[in-house]
C-alpha cells in the first residue's frame, strides 16, 4: 500500500531525504566519470555534471514531497518544533499540562461512570428484548408499579402467552451453606428454569436448569456463580456432579456461570446491589399454589422477535382475566385496586433513578474542564504576547497568517494531547479508588472501566479543548489581513498597556472565577443538606453502640415453628448474659434496613372503610425489649413480653404517626384493634412507640405496625401460620464493633445451635451512614469539583495580576522613583484583582441561580437559592482572590526603581 509507506515516511523525513541525496549524488558522479573519461579534468567534470543536472535542491524537495504526505509532514514538523519549545520553558508546559490533566481526567472519570451505567447496554445478548413483568395496582390513592407475580400467575402466563420467547421468574434470597468450616450465609437467586435462557448467558461449565429440576420430587440441583466457585471451591472444575449442602439439604452442582455474568438486580430500589453466590431452582410445591399466594416473584421475559413492548402489555392484560378464572382469585379486589400490567425494559429497572444524578455530575465536571481551558488559554495568551517579536519576524520572512495560526494551534494540540494522556492516567486511578470505596447505590459498579468509548471521548475532549483554548491566541495574532508591526527590537517602550489586551485576559478570569463560584455554591448547598440530614433525630439512640447481625433459622434446619421461637429466645438470653451487653433484641427489619422492609394491608378499627384494598402499612416483627435496645421511646402503653410471644397473644404496637393519623392522640390508640386485610383476626394495640425515620432521614417517618415475634396466627381458617425465621439481632454494648466482641457473640449463638450462619455483621451506625450515602456521594463529588475549580480560578487570578505587573515594570519603576508610596502600588493591584473577582462573583451568583435549580432533587432543608450560602461563597472567593493577587502585588511594591530603569 503506497499510502502506508508515504505515511511512514512522514516520520522518517531525514532518512528519505538522505536516500534521495544519495541517488542524486550517484547520478552526478556517473556523469562526471563519463565526462572525465572523455577527457575533461576531474574537477571540471564534476562541476559540469552538477550544472547539467540542474537545481539539486528543488529536485530533492520535489522527490521528497512525492514520497511522503505533504501536509502531514508539515504538521509533524510543527509538533516537533512545539515539543522543543516546551522543553525550553518547562514550567509553563508543566502548569498547562497539569491543569488540563485535572480537567480532562475528571471528565473522563465521570464519563466512564455515565458510560457504564447509562449508555452501555446490559451484558446480555440483545438486551433490548428483555423486559420485566410488573403490575400496577392502586392502594388508597397510591399507585405502585412494582407489584410482582404470584406462583399461579406464572403458570397462567407461561401457558397462555403469545408474545414471549422465554418467560421465567426469579427472586433474590439467602441460604446457608454448611459442610466445611463455618456455616456461611450466601446470597441466592432462585429461578425457574426458563429465566437463565431468557437472559441468554450460557454457563461456562455444565448446563442450565431444565424443567425436570423445577419439578417437585426430583434430584435437587444448584448452579454456582464464578466468584463464589473460585472463592469457596478454589475454581475446581471437578465440583460439577458433586453435592453441596445448602439449607441442610445436599444439592448436586450442575453448572457454573461465566465470570462476566451478573443478575439484573435493581440498583436503588433498596435491593442489595450485590452479586449472587448461588443459583437455585424455583420449585412450587403443589400445596403452595394457593389462589392467594404472595406476589413475591419477579418476572422476566424475552420478547419474540418483532414483538413490541406495547404488544406484550396488551397480551398480559388479556391473560389477567384468564388467570383469575383459572385460579379462582377474587376479581373484585383486583378490579377495585385497578390491577393491570406494567411491563418495562430490564435496563430501566437496573439503572433506577441514578441517571439524573450522573448527568448533573457530568455537567459539573464539564464546567471544571471549561475553567481549566480558560486557564490554559490565558497562559497561552501571555506566552504569545512574549513571543510577539518572534512571530512578527516570522511574518516578515513570509509566513502567512495560516502558517502562524497552524503553528499556534499545533502547540495547543500538543498540550491538549499531553493533558489528555495525563488525564487518562488520573481517571484510571480515580476509578480504581471509586470501585474500592464502592458507594452502595451506584448500579453496575463492577462494570465501570475505561473502554474504547471512553478513550475516544477523552481524545475528542483533549483535541476539542486544545482547539478551544488555542483559538484565542491564534485569533489574536493570526487573522487574515492583520499586519504585524515590527516594534523596536527591545520590546515596546509603551508606558501603559493596551486596553484590549487586558480585556481578553480579564474576560477569561471572570469566566473561570464565575464558574468556580457556581460550583462552590452547589457544594455549599450540599454541605448544608448533609448537615441538615445529620441533625435529624432518627428516632433511635446512639446507633454506634448497637451491634447488629442477621440470623436465619431455615426450614430444613429447624422445621418446627415452636422450636424456632424457643431457639430465638435461648439465643437472646445467651447474648443478654454476656458481660458488657446492656440490652438485646431482634426484629425482621431494624430501622433503616430497607432491604428487609415489608408492608401489609392493615385495617384499623374506627378507620373509615374505603373501597379497595386497605392502606399498606410498613410492618416489622419485633421481639420484647426491641424498643429499649434501640432507644426508641414508648409514648404510651407497654412493650411486648415473652409471655405474649409464647402464648401467641394477638397484640400489636403502633408507631406514633399511625396512632395520630387514625385516632388523633397516641394514648387513645391503646385498646383499639387492627387486622391484616379485611378478614384477618383482630389484634389489640398495647403500646405506641415514638416515630423513627425508617426510610432514611430525608423522608417523613412512616406509619409502622410492630407485630410481635413468635408464631403469628393464620389470616384465614386453615391458612398457614407465619413465624419470622430471618431476623436481625440488635445488641447494645460499649464494645460494639470490636473483633473480640463479635467473636464472643458468635460463640454464644453457636452454643445454642452451631449450624446457624451469621450474616451482615455491622453496627447500627453503619446502617445509618448507608442511608445517607446518596447525599454524601453527591456531596463528595461536588466538593472535589468545587475545590478544583477554586484552585484553578485562583491560579488564573494570580496569572493575570502577575502578567500585569510584569508588563508595567518600567512604569512602576518610574513612579516609585518619582516618589510614589509602595503601599499605593500594592493597593492598586489589589484593587484590580478585587474588581475582577467582584464582577466574576456577580456573574457566578446570577448563573448559580439558574443552575442550582437542577440540584433541588438532592437538597434537604435548604432551598436552591439560599442567600447565606451564596454570601459565604462570595466572601471566600474574594478573600482567596486577594490572597492570590498578594504575591505579584507585593512583588510590584518591592520593585527597585534603579534596577528596572537600567534594564533594557
Amino acid at each position, binding site marked *: 500500500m*503506497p499510502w502506508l509507506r508515504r505515511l511512514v515516511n512522514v516520520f522518517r523525513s531525514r532518512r528519505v531525504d538522505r*536516500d534521495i541525496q*544519495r541517488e*542524486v549524488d550517484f547520478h552526478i558522479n556517473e556523469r562526471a566519470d563519463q565526462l572525465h573519461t572523455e577527457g575533461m579534468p576531474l574537477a571540471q567534470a564534476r562541476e559540469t555534471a552538477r550544472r547539467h543536472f540542474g537545481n539539486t535542491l528543488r529536485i530533492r524537495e520535489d522527490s521528497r514531497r512525492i514520497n511522503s504526505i505533504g501536509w502531514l509532514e508539515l504538521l509533524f514538523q510543527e509538533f516537533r518544533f512545539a515539543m522543543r519549545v516546551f522543553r525550553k520553558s518547562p514550567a509553563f508546559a508543566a502548569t498547562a499540562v497539569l491543569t488540563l490533566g485535572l480537567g480532562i481526567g475528571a471528565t473522563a472519570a465521570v464519563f466512564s461512570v455515565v458510560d457504564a451505567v447509562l449508555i452501555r447496554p446490559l451484558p446480555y445478548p440483545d438486551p433490548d428484548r428483555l423486559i420485566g413483568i410488573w403490575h400496577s395496582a392502586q392502594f388508597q390513592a397510591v399507585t405502585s408499579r412494582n407489584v410482582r407475580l404470584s406462583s399461579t400467575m406464572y403458570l397462567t402466563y407461561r401457558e397462555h402467552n403469545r408474545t414471549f420467547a422465554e418467560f421465567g421468574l426469579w427472586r433474590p434470597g439467602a441460604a446457608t451453606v454448611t459442610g466445611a468450616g463455618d456455616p456461611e450465609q450466601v446470597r441466592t437467586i432462585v429461578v425457574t428454569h426458563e429465566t437463565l435462557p431468557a437472559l441468554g448467558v450460557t454457563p461456562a461449565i455444565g448446563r442450565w436448569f431444565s424443567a425436570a429440576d423445577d419439578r417437585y420430587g426430583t434430584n435437587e440441583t444448584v448452579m454456582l456463580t464464578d466468584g463464589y466457585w473460585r472463592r469457596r471451591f478454589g475454581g475446581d472444575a471437578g465440583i460439577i456432579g458433586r453435592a453441596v449442602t445448602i439449607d441442610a439439604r445436599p444439592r448436586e452442582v450442575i453448572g457454573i456461570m461465566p465470570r462476566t455474568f451478573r443478575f439484573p438486580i435493581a440498583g436503588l430500589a433498596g435491593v442489595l446491589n450485590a452479586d449472587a453466590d448461588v443459583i437455585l431452582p424455583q420449585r412450587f410445591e403443589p400445596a403452595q399454589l394457593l389462589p392467594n399466594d404472595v406476589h413475591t416473584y419477579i418476572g422476566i421475559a424475552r420478547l419474540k422477535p418483532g414483538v413490541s413492548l406495547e404488544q406484550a402489555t396488551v397480551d398480559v392484560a388479556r391473560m389477567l382475566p384468564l388467570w383469575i378464572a383459572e385460579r379462582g382469585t377474587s376479581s373484585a379486589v383486583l378490579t377495585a385496586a385497578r390491577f393491570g400490567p406494567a411491563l418495562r425494559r430490564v435496563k430501566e429497572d437496573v439503572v433506577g433513578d441514578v441517571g439524573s444524578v450522573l448527568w448533573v455530575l457530568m455537567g459539573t465536571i464539564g464546567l471544571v474542564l471549561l475553567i481549566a481551558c480558560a486557564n490554559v488559554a490565558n497562559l497561552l495568551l501571555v506566552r504569545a504576547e512574549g513571543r510577539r517579536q518572534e512571530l512578527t519576524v516570522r511574518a516578515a520572512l513570509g509566513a502567512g497568517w495560516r502558517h502562524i495560526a497552524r503553528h499556534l494551534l499545533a502547540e495547543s494540540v500538543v498540550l491538549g494531547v499531553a493533558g489528555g494522556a495525563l488525564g487518562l492516567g488520573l481517571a484510571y486511578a480515580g476509578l480504581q479508588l471509586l470501585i474500592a470505596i464502592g458507594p452502595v447505590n451506584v448500579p453496575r459498579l463492577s462494570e465501570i472501566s475505561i473502554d474504547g468509548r471512553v478513550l475516544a471521548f477523552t481524545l475528542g475532549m483533549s483535541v476539542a479543548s486544545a482547539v478551544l483554548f488555542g483559538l484565542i491566541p491564534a485569533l489574536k495574532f493570526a487573522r487574515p489581513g492583520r499586519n504585524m508591526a515590527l516594534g523596536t527590537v527591545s520590546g515596546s517602550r509603551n508606558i501603559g498597556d493596551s486596553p484590549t489586551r487586558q480585556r481578553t485576559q480579564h474576560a477569561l478570569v471572570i469566566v473561570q472565577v464565575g464558574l468556580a463560584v457556581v460550583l462552590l455554591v452547589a457544594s455549599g448547598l450540599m454541605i448544608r443538606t448533609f448537615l441538615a440530614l445529620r441533625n435529624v433525630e432518627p428516632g433511635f439512640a446512639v446507633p454506634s453502640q448497637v451491634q447488629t447481625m442477621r440470623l436465619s433459622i431455615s426450614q430444613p434446619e429447624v422445621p418446627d415453628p415452636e422450636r424456632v421461637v424457643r431457639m430465638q429466645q435461648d439465643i437472646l438470653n445467651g447474648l443478654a448474659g454476656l458481660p458488657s451487653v446492656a440490652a438485646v433484641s431482634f426484629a425482621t427489619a431494624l430501622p433503616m434496613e430497607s432491604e428487609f422492609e415489608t408492608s401489609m394491608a392493615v385495617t384499623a378499627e374506627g378507620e373509615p372503610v374505603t373501597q379497595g384494598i386497605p392502606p399498606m402499612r410498613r410492618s416489622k416483627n419485633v421481639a420484647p425489649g426491641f424498643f429499649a435496645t434501640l432507644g426508641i421511646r414508648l409514648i404510651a402503653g407497654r412493650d411486648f413480653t415473652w409471655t405474649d410471644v409464647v402464648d401467641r397473644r394477638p397484640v400489636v404496637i403502633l408507631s406514633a404517626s399511625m396512632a395520630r393519623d387514625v385516632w388523633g392522640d397516641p394514648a387513645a390508640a391503646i385498646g383499639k384493634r387492627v387486622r391484616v386485610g379485611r378478614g384477618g383476626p383482630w389484634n389489640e394495640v398495647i403500646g405506641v412507640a415514638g416515630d423513627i425515620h425508617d426510610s432514611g432521614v430525608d423522608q417523613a417517618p412512616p406509619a409502622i405496625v410492630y407485630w410481635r415475634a413468635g408464631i403469628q396466627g393464620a389470616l384465614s381458617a386453615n391458612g398457614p401460620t407465619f413465624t419470622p425465621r430471618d431476623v436481625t439481632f440488635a445488641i447494645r454494648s460499649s464494645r460494639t464493633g470490636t473483633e473480640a466482641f463479635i467473636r464472643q457473640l458468635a460463640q454464644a449463638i453457636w452454643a445454642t445451635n452451631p449450624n446457624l450462619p451469621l450474616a451482615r455483621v455491622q453496627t447500627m451506625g453503619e446502617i445509618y451512614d448507608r442511608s445517607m450515602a446518596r447525599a454524601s456521594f453527591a456531596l463528595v463529588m461536588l466538593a472535589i469539583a468545587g475545590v478544583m475549580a477554586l484552585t484553578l480560578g485562583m491560579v488564573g487570578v494570580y496569572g493575570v495580576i502577575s502578567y500585569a505587573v510584569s508588563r508595567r515594570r518600567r512604569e512602576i519603576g518610574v513612579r516609585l522613583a518619582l516618589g510614589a508610596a509602595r503601599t499605593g502600588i500594592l493597593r492598586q493591584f489589589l484593587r484590580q484583582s478585587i474588581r475582577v473577582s467582584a464582577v466574576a462573583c456577580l456573574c457566578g451568583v446570577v448563573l448559580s441561580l439558574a443552575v442550582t435549580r437542577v440540584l433541588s432533587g438532592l437538597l434537604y432543608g435548604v432551598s436552591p437559592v439560599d442567600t447565606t450560602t451564596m454570601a459565604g461563597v462570595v466572601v471566600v472567593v474574594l478573600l482567596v482572590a486577594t490572597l492570590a493577587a498578594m504575591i505579584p502585588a507585593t512583588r510590584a511594591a518591592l520593585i527597585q526603581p534603579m534596577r528596572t530603569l537600567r534594564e533594557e
Partner: protein
Amino acid sequence: MAAAKNDILQGTLTLLVLKTLASNKRMHGYAITTHVQIVSGDLLRVEEGSLYPALHRMEQHGWLRAEWGVTEKNREARFYSLTAKGRKQLVDEEDSWARFTEGVGRVLRYV
C-alpha cells in the same frame, strides 16, 4: 553534448522510462538517461531535473519497484524494475502514444 537540448513532455518521459525498463531488467537513473540518449540517436535527451521526481512518482503509482544495489564499479545505486502493473501501464501508454501521433499526423497531412 553540443546538440540542441530537446525538452521532452512529461507524459512521454513516463512512456520512455517504462519502455526502457521493459527491455532491460534493472537499471539505475543514470543508465536510463544514457539508454534513451543512445537508442534515440541523440535525438532525445532526458531532462534530469524531471527524471527523478518522475521515477518516484511512478514508484508510488506501483508501476516500478526500486531497491538499492551495487554497480560494476562497486558504487551504491538505486535500481528500478518494472512491475506487472507497470507492464500493463506500458501497453496503455503505447496505445495512447500511437493514437496521439496518428492524430497529429493526420492534422499535419491535411493540406
